[in-house]
């Protein structure tokens, strides 16, 4: 009984004390808080050093997304590369957690510090691939998934990826 009374009084005291401390909030947007350079905001889709889109439509971002706000469909280009026929993110659901960036095996998805995406119409928060794709490599300048992966594409034959031997001659009996 006495213990709960003390607890109540201490709570009241703490609240009262906060009336005289400095406010942590700022008058946004007139006043802007300091944000770290790698603050997690809106995502972009980047390109590899050769200028082709990095996304291979593997669906890992979609499955990692805790609010399920990414949807895409894979397609195969004539040169053999997988690509997203559409890549849609519903930013009105996005919580900018960065799980998609972490899941992305090709460094295609990268988070930017931009979070200021207010709209009067929720529909405008739906971004398609055209809105997301940028003309650069983002944070990872040299990574090119198809240089590492064993999949053959136009301009990179079997055995030409990183750490690969030339294709086996299956007709040879030599040791």
């Amino acid at each position, binding site marked *: 009984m006495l213990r709960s009374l003390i607890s109540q009084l201490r709570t009241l005291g703490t609240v009262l004390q906060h009336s005289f401390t400095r406010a942590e909030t700022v008058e946004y947007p007139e006043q802007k808080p300091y944000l770290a350079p790698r603050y997690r905001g809106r995502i972009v889709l980047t390109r590899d050093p050769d200028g082709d889109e990095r996304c291979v*439509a593997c*669906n890992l971002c979609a*499955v990692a997304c805790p*609010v399920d706000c990414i*949807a895409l469909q894979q397609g195969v280009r004539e040169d053999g590369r997988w690509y997203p026929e559409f890549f849609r993110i519903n930013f009105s659901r996005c919580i900018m957690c960065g799980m998609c960036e972490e899941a992305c095996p090709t460094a295609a998805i990268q988070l930017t510090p931009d979070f200021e995406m207010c709209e009067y119409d*929720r529909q405008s928060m739906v971004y398609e691939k055209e809105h997301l794709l940028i003309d650069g490599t983002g944070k990872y300048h040299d990574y090119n998934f198809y240089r590492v*992966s*064993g*999949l053959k594409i136009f301009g990179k034959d079997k055995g030409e990826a990183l750490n690969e031997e030339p294709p086996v001659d299956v007709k040879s009996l030599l040791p």
Partner: protein
Amino acid sequence: MPVIKVDGKDYEVAEGGNLLESCLGLGLDLPYFCWHPAMGSIGACRQCAVVQYQNEEDTRGRIVMACMTPVTDGAIFDLSGERASGFRQTVVESLMVDHPHDCPVCAEGGECHLQDMTVMTGHRDRHYRGTKKTYRNQYLGPLIHHEMNRCITCYRCTRFYRDYAGGTDLAALAAHDHVYFGRHREGTLESPFAGNLVEVCPTGVFTDKSLVHDYTRKWDLQSAPSVCTSCGVGCNTLPGERYGRLKRIHNRYNPAVNGYFLCDRGRFGGTHVNAESRIDFPAQRDSEGRFQALTDEACARALRDRLQGKRLAGIGSPRAGAEANLLLQRLVGAENYASGMADDEHALMQRALAHLVNSTAHNPSLREIESADAVLLLGEDLTHTAARTALALRQAVRNEAHRLAEELRLAPWQDAAIRNLAQDRRSPLHVVCAGSTDLDDIAAGHYRLVAADQARLASDIAAIIRGEARSDGAAARIAADLLAAERPLVLSGPGAGSAALLDGAAAIAEALVAAGKAAMLSFTAAECNSMGQALLCRDSHIALAALASTDAEVLIILENDLLRRLPMASVEALRARIPTWIGIDCLENDTLARCDLVLPAAAFTETEATYINQEGRAQRAFPTHPPAEARRPAWRWLLDLARAAGDRTLSGIGHFDDIGVTLAGEDPLLQGIASAAPDHSFRSRGLKIPRQPHRYSGRTAMRADVSVHEPRQTDDADSALAFSMEGSATTDRPGALLSYVWSPGWNSNQSLHKFQSEIGGALRGEGSGLRLLDSLAVAAATPAPLPEAFSRREQEWLLQARHHLFGSDELSRLGSGIEALTGRAAIYLHPEDASRLGLEAGDGAVIAGAALEVRLDPSQVPGSAGFSTGYPETLALRSGEWVNIDVASDWQRQPELIGSDRGAAS
């Protein structure tokens, strides 16, 4: 039962098994690659290593492969200790040395057994710094994609393809660590079961080509238990859907029917539901003959105008579900209802049904067919009419090997040892068919006869078995083999078009039973619900040919292209006779083009239906996804038609389940249909069963391009399944409601063992369809007269139907990839006959107005001509007719393919 000790705990396990399957059956996770529940063990991959101790005092133990170790009473194993798991980790690491870095662009990713096993063993960091071995891929046809770099040389592919399915053109090639799994040169895989490589391969070497080009991960596929509609076997399937498109079909395990495998028609033919020619809206033909789409109200009005107070007739369909057919039969009256099969086929199916019900021989399931120790196949080219049954026969001929193994006390899972022991010794299979068949390679004898002679041979065999006749020819050899067996099987079907042949098959089975054998008798059925239609019309129906003489004013055609059933002249006569035609179907066809009102039906992946397979097993299929646009299940359209016609007897039906329950009455058939699967009120732990895996992605973005406001999930009031990821997805849900297989740590279809009560046995939730024929009574068939022996004519040829796995079935021929394999319709002639006609292979011949490509086949009986049945060009041809063959005058020979043509096809 033996008791074994694993990790210090005692377990009671089944006798005669190996340690791997015992552990998996106990729910213990033990990684493996090369072992397969249907193919046994060979100990090739070294992944299932455990430590075995001699006795309690033994502290060192030795590493053994669990899949090659029999369980014996008192054996002591260490599964999770440092030594066993460390060994397994090194094995995976060595397998991963050359694995390409391509999971993101691999169609196996997310349901990859190699991924699962790598995670399960705990291997994470790569220590090897050397280079990776690479291979060139092969073109393996329009169905299968090859990516050899991913191979871990477990040999499962060749063991399935060659040893299990009898294929010859896929092999382990090259030497030492260059071993290569492929063909001797590029080309389409010949086996009709090649598609199973997609599921058999533990990683992504063989993948589904159409899926690779329109890919969705397993976790994003919405799927529901379905039944294959491509033939009468009734294999259980799991179609997967995303964005309204059918992406792929996987096998759904049913211990009594298809087990672990499907044929390629079933696996790849289903994508016809994505075809451009799907019908989306109801339409009415205007005065100029063009179809105009109708709104819902306009459609209801049009139906009322055309149906109220009119005399109705209906044509059902062997490819529509039992419920829709039943509703149509009740709506128009049984005396105005045609089964939808061609009249001769209908009579054959009625006869087959009468024999199956009245014979004292057992009517076997596919699993039981695999247990036959002598088989007589009469008049069916089984690989093309019921492919999965042909695969079962390939297992049946191995019973001799199993008998030999039993003598040496070899366990049945000792696959390599048993094959070595048996070599070419097989249980006898005798194939009687009009031409060569794909089972000839394992047949003890094959006899090429036209249908009339097949029937005469069958009747001779029966007489010999009964002891009424003697001979020393083929009939005596076959009879001797059947009498030497314990469980002989006689298998026939309507494929040859002969009633006397069915009688002969039944007589042989009957004689075998009289001789004290546990004989089995089975008939194939052409379509997924042919047997259902034979059952539904067992008391009364109207022949298609008799419809033109009724006084009906409206003809309702349910999912049926009449031009495949009737000659063109008869269809035209019927059209002239009955003023109003209403057609319900999913794809455009020539019958719908003749209708006044067209109603868009849901395809097999969009509707609930019960199909009755050749064995008389009723199996329920559920919609994988809700139908798009104005498409609706046929049974819903029929309820609308009934309402428009003012029929009150069907007005009490709201749910799909009500159809069977309301109309069943005392009829055991309808009661069986109604209880083929748990009804819509079934709940698992108080919840519905989800169609989507728990990690289904993109829910809040899939439809955001249309509207950012997410619609609520479509309700499914007609079944216990939900179009949702929420619900109860336990491993003991009923087999009929198994919407997908997944278990923690087991993302691939290998997780199936978690759903089984024993490896390769029944599902934990039970339910593999309901056999109907055991409880039915049907009048015995009057014997058909034995036909005259075949004698050739001078200028005429006897037509004999040839079935093609790819092409003879109406809908599966439109599946993606399959259209490239159907080829042209052909006429098959004996080379001597062809030279008499002045024809060579590849020339054109005209038969009854149809121009067909000539193929030479020495197995064709001289004086007869085989034709590709079911092709649009050959719909006018009927098996058993005598025809003239003329040389086609303006025939274009098929150009030979050159290398660069293939790029466009692949």
